[in-house]
């Protein structure tokens, strides 16, 4: 009697647990997807941070200029995949990467500033 109760209890706990885990899992997948759909690059001190960013296809990358000097975000390919206008302090530029590939870019005003987005 006790054994069956405890087994039932265990089974119930298991089902409950799996149910909760399932919910939890679904919840974390959603937030992970949300997190991955927008990625940030900070521009500061004549640097792109992070220098190399790896993202899944479909991600929107947003560059924010935190420097006290204007910068641009320009891909090095030709024709250019993306090219921002001049970003003064606190201005942003976003681009959604719909195709996989490697996208090197630089600041056209200060060409020594370079970065890369790898889209997988």
């Amino acid at each position, binding site marked *: 009697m006790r054994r069956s109760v405890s087994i039932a209890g265990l089974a119930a706990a298991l089902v409950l647990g799996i149910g909760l885990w399932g919910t939890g899992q679904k919840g974390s997948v959603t937030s992970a997807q949300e997190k991955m759909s927008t990625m940030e690059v900070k521009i500061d001190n*004549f640097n792109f941070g992070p220098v190399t960013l790896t993202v899944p296809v479909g991600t929107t990358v947003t560059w924010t200029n935190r420097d*006290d000097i204007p910068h641009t975000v320009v891909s090095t390919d030709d024709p250019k995949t993306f090219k921002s206008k001049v970003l003064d302090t606190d201005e942003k530029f976003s681009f959604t990467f719909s195709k996989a590939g490697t996208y090197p*870019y630089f600041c056209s005003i200060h*060409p020594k500033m*370079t970065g890369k987005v790898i889209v997988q």
Partner: protein
Amino acid sequence: MSEKKKDQLLHDHNHDGIDRRGFLKCMAWTGTGAFCVMKGGVLNSYSLSRISEISTSDMMGELSFVQISDSHMGFNKPANPDVAGTLKAAVEKINGLSAAPEFMLHTGDISHLSKPEEFDTVGQILKGAKPKDVFYVPGEHDVLNDDGKQFLERYGKGSKGAGWYSFDKKGVHFIGLVNVMNLKAGGLGTLGHEQLEWMEDDVKLLKHSTPIVVFAHIPLWSVYPEWGWGTEDSAQALAYLKKFGSVTVLNGHIHQTMQKVEGNVTFHTAASTAFPQPQPGKADSAGPMKVPAEQLRSVLGITDVNYVQSQHALAVVDSSLA
């Protein structure tokens, strides 16, 4: 103490009347305020604080002009919230020079964001300067958004390509170069084939005794490549000038004065009238350097250049706004 510092021509190794060692010593003094003049083959230097004691004839050449640079009109961050005010102070300094300069060179970054009102403001402020003629070359901040179209419309009359040109004043040949277009990722300043070919042609028929002044925004020598302070193809440009006895290269971009003498070429960079930048490698990046407000004007400045006709070198004097 009333004696003036004075050096005579001591070493004339190349037999061309230029005491390069003495000139170098003199150039080292310009940072702390020395006025050097070549007269009759003799290099004389005078402490800037004693300049009022020197006779005008000793000080003057047949041609004098002023270089200003990096006014960055539109910049308003803590490093200098009033770049219009400091540009006005530079104009006052120019108007206060005992030998009124004939014209001005602006070596670029006139504006901060290539906005029309920024260019307009600089024009208005410079109208208050005694020298009415101003010759410009663009900085990278002047050619944003439109590949330099606005710069050409405003300042490019008579120029070729992206705005390069040359002119003569009292026997001195001036060459304005553009090295801020088509910058490549990871690269330095660049002149490009078309401009180099034009320059080769431009100087081909000049006599070797013609003094040359080249002005461009980014330094034409490798000041600090890590921060982009150099021009990739400047060696080619300088090769075209090898035959000349006196070449002076005036640049901006790095917001501090620096000079270097290499053979017949004197390189000089000007201070900004807007904000200083750190010395090479002395900071994380080349960005605007904040100094205590009361020190700001002492790190901004103008450059006064004097030329004595038939002599070899130009006298280049930096003075701060403080």
